[in-house]
């Protein structure tokens, strides 16, 4: 695959890649953009080479995940070195609101983001890849670099946590979250 062709494919997958980078960077927009830029740089320099062993999307997502982990470690090290500096802390709840809010978000959506941020990383990744990116569990396992059994376990546990969150939200806000509509539809 030559660079022009690869560029076209990357452009097609750009928004999905950014969504995945956001998930890997705990919803930090600036960090996600930096990670995506680093990924493109790696591709341009030939450090990340697509050999066609899996689908391009799976390969790209794996590269994004690894890069995000690397960047996170670097940032952690920088924070340790320059401890006491006025760098912002990575609070998942606040970092979700870090970029300028352009769109009016519903309270449920906000709470959902917080609930997602509270999930263990593997569970969050599994849920994101399946629900957000429409990948199969096998593809999600490939991206995460784990076996399909482990991926399924993370997926089920994550779903269980979110289910509990949904039940709590229902109780707290006294809303059905569309249960009636769904039941009537069934």
């Amino acid at each position, binding site marked *: 695959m030559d660079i022009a062709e690869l560029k076209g494919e990357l*452009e097609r997958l750009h*928004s999905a890649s950014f969504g995945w980078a*956001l998930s890997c960077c705990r919803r930090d927009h600036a960090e996600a*953009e930096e990670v995506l830029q680093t990924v493109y740089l790696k591709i341009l*320099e030939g450090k990340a080479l697509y050999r066609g062993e899996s689908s391009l999307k799976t390969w790209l997502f794996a590269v994004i995940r690894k890069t995000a982990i690397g960047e996170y470690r670097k940032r952690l090290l920088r924070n340790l070195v320059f401890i006491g500096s006025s760098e912002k802390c990575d609070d998942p709840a606040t970092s979700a609101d870090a970029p300028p809010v*352009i*769109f009016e978000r519903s309270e449920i959506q906000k709470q959902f983001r917080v609930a997602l941020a509270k999930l263990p990383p593997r569970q969050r990744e599994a849920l994101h890849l399946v629900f957000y990116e429409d990948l199969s569990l096998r593809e999600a396992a490939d991206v995460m670099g784990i076996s399909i059994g482990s991926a399924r376990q993370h997926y089920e546990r994550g779903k269980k946590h979110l289910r509990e969150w949904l039940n709590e939200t229902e109780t707290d806000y006294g809303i059905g979250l569309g249960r009636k509509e769904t039941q009537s539809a069934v």
Partner: protein
Amino acid sequence: MESGWEEKKLKALFSELKATDEQTAPRFAGVWNRAQIAPRRIRAFNPAFVAATALLVFGLVFLAVWSRYSQRTPQEPMVVIVPTAPVPTNATAPSPSNEINVKPVTPRKILAVSRANKLAARRHAMLVAANRKLTKDANTIANWQSPTTALLTSPSDEIFSSLPQFNQSTTQLKSFLPTRSN
């Protein structure tokens, strides 16, 4: 049934999240162009490269300094002590020729010499100090005077120092006789 509803709800929530993210996502061209420019910047300020270069330069400088001093130290003895005469043990004051000649040594050289040379220098310095002390003690003993010397002198010292001789005349001898008051 319940599980299916929850999955649909989760799917809906993720879809909403995706729609929001798509609208806030940066343009592909912008990110791609920045990535194309980035390599030059990264190569210019690669901290690992800078650290490695600094370490190499430091190592070379250290080696150069070390080798220079390690070659110089055996050729240059640090201290040269030449005693020109034995240390005086009699009570006479030492003459200027009896003083020990010590070649002055700069502190810089002392720092540079090897450990063996340092030990030798220390021994020599101790010897010089001991010799100096000995000389000083000898001088002090030679110049010593008893504090009671003044008490031993009297006005009749002159008489005792000039006793009558056998070949002197009687008139002269009379002067030694005690005068009688009559």
